[in-house]
């Protein structure tokens, strides 16, 4: 890549880390030039035109269209360039994540709880394999938090009441800071975590060592029964509710004529606010589970429903 020819440039440990750094250097250079020009002009004028110094002050201009138009359009052009550059890298950072490996993160005052698909859970730590895109699905149990890994140049707020998904990819094994960047109360500054990036083999070993009794989806299945979801959504019950087998990832026609894709957000919303999006052909009779399930349990339910994707309806 052409960027590797730039002296002192380094790739960064996320796919866009180097781009963000390069953008920063670009901004520093542009502002450095502006400051140098401005300060040398100020200094020059202050010395040359100080009171008591005998210099030619005749014919000074009071206004000049050419200068005004000149520096206005020069600023606009430079700003437009910086805007496009920043936007291009931004869209790369927040691209829609793939669905290969999903890890769930629940933020709450004042800790990060992580749940892996295999049922492994950790607190204030996140183990990930290197060189593999990971989809993080994040939720907040209480107030707004912000998931910030400086080394990756990545940050995203975790807002209660919705899922945020972002993609995470690390190219070098190591331990990296995870900070909460949005003020969230008393121990905001102690809401730290550690990102542990591992070789894929080490990661597999780590997953096995954790030895969870049940996978996330199995936990979700238990919950699915205890909460009574299975009563309506499984088998041929008297209550008419859609089957959830084979649902995940498919388009769902709604009663208002629109079509949505059954992703994590849709499933979450359907559990908490069942009447906001009614599947076509069904009655709005499902009760809301708002306040009855925690974010962590919701993620287990989502994982379970997701695991039904391959089963036929």
């Amino acid at each position, binding site marked *: 890549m052409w960027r590797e020819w730039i002296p002192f440039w380094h790739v960064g440990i996320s796919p866009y880390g180097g781009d*963000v750094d390069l*953008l*920063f250097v670009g*901004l520093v250079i542009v*502002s450095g030039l*502006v*400051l140098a020009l*401005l*300060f040398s002009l*100020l200094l020059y004028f*202050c010395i040359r*035109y*100080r*009171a008591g110094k005998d210099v030619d*002050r005749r014919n*000074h*201009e*009071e*206004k*000049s269209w050419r*200068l*005004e138009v000149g*520096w*206005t359009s020069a600023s606009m052009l430079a*700003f*437009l360039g*910086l*805007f496009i550059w*920043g*936007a*291009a*890298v*931004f*869209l*790369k*950072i*927040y691209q829609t994540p793939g669905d290969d490996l999903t890890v769930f993160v629940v933020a709450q*005052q004042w800790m990060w709880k992580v749940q892996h698909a295999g049922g492994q859970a950790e607190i204030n730590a996140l183990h990930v394999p290197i060189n593999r895109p990971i989809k993080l699905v994040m939720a907040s149990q*209480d*107030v*707004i938090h*912000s998931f910030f890994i*400086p*080394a990756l*140049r990545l940050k*995203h*707020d975790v*807002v*209660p*009441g*919705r899922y945020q998904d972002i993609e995470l990819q690390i190219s070098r094994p190591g331990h990296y800071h995870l900070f909460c*960047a*949005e*003020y969230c*109360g*008393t121990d*905001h*500054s*102690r809401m*730290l975590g550690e990102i542990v990036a591992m070789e894929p083999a080490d990661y597999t070993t780590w997953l096995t060592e954790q030895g969870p009794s049940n996978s996330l989806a199995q936990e979700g299945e238990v919950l699915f029964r205890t909460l009574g979801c299975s009563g309506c959504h499984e088998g041929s019950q008297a209550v008419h509710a859609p089957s959830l087998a084979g649902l995940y990832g498919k388009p769902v026609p709604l009663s208002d004529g629109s079509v949505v894709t059954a992703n994590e957000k849709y499933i979450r919303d359907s559990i908490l606010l069942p009447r906001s999006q009614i599947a076509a052909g069904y009655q709005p009779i499902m009760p809301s589970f708002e306040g009855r399930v925690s974010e962590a349990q919701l993620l287990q339910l989502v994982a379970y429903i997701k695991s039904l994707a391959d089963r036929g309806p």
Partner: protein
Amino acid sequence: MSNNYLTDGYTLRSWFFTIDHKRIAILYFASLIFLFLIGGAAATMIRIELVTPQADLVSSDTYNRLFTMHGIIMVWFFLIPSIPNTLGNFIVPLMIGARDLAFPRLNLASWYLFMLGAAITLYAIFMGGIDTGWTLYTPFSTLYSNSYVAVAAAGIFVAGFSSILTGLNFIVTIHKLRAPGLTWYKLPLFIWSLYATSIILVLATPVLAITLVLLAAERIFGVGVFDPRIGGDPLLFQHLFWFYSHPAVYIMILPGMGVVNELITCYSRKKIFGYKFVAWASLAIAAAGFLVWGHHMFVSGQSLIASLVFSFMSFVVAVPSAIKVFNWTATLHKGTLRFDAPMLYALGFIGLFTMGGLTGLFLACLAFDVYATDTYFVVAHFHYIMVGGMVTAYFGGLHYWWPKITGRMYSDYWARAAAILIFLGFNLTFFPQFILGVEGMPRRYHVYPPEFQVWNALSSGGATILAAAYLLPVFYLGYSLFFGARAPANPWGATGLEWQTSSPPPKLNFDKQPVVTSPPYDYEHAPEPQNA
């Protein structure tokens, strides 16, 4: 001694029930010094606490209350009223050749509202404080905070009406009370920038009031507006809050720019370069400033398209600021530059404001903002604008108009020393915070990883210099107040109607109605400075 506004009555009643804009300006000035000291004390505690990575001075709950108190006091009870309500209140009628503002009683009422708001907010702070940050983000502020959120919100709500009334008063005054011959393009640019500020005050502050009412409704009565558990949307609060609070940033800088126009021209002995561009740039900032609020929310989960638009608009709003800086610089060209204290403050303003403005471009740049937002980079950036810019301009304006306001001269030697110390102390305090931000230190952290200590300690060291520099004027201006030489009507040889009346001005400002015939900043025909 001739009769002036200061000698017109010595009773408390003659001050607290005055409807003279000059006396009301003094009332504001005294209140603001007090509030600035309270906000400054909180900042001092914060900087002492951050010298070491561990918690050593205060608990986390106290620390959170300290930075919240610092933010609320400094934004709503110092920066927003600073130049408009003290210098603006005093100078605007003088500058346009009027006897007073259009609504003198409303002016006094707005001071009482301001004091009521300040009293309520201080009550909240001293009863136990508020720990939400000045941004009051929901649902933390509505459901989770165990502090005096509703009381503080009530204080801010009341003070907001003071802002609205002041803005309204200025708009009407500038439209209706200009002296004969004083057309819009003959107005000093300080008036243009206060006019632009007033428009924002009148249009944006009601949105803050609405937002605070909704916040209180949710916190007290559980009306679901912002908390997702009861059907609200947390981001709605951010949209409403920044719809006010980003324009409020321009309330906090436009008056400073206005002051700098007066200082640069006076001490260059030259008409300002590109008058019309500078004048309209103020209004352009006021207008475009309403369309950039979403740049506070690039990482919040707002739509990517919204982020693109807000980023673009944020670059656009920087253009008129750049135009101003270039025009100030061009004004110096072929001037006859004198470096009295106000000029040093003005030059310091240009340097610090430009630094703040350029780092604002960093933050407008989407990909870098994802990294830098909510870090110390943002803290450093807005302090360069608010403190490096606005407070420096405030000090510059205060020194410039001091002889007019008090009728006394001050020690230029000490004033220049303070200006230089403020500039150095400011940079030592806040430049290290840019580096902390680039290294990834989040803001509002009571304890922090040890690798950030060096720059934090340096910043705290700089803060001691800055604090000392800010206290210096208390001594030499205090001395001047009682022992300074009597000031002539126009010590700096400045243009502008305020210099044509005596220092301090008589109760009704002018002995006879001034009539304007000359263009603005006509320094070719201005009298020589008398302190040369």
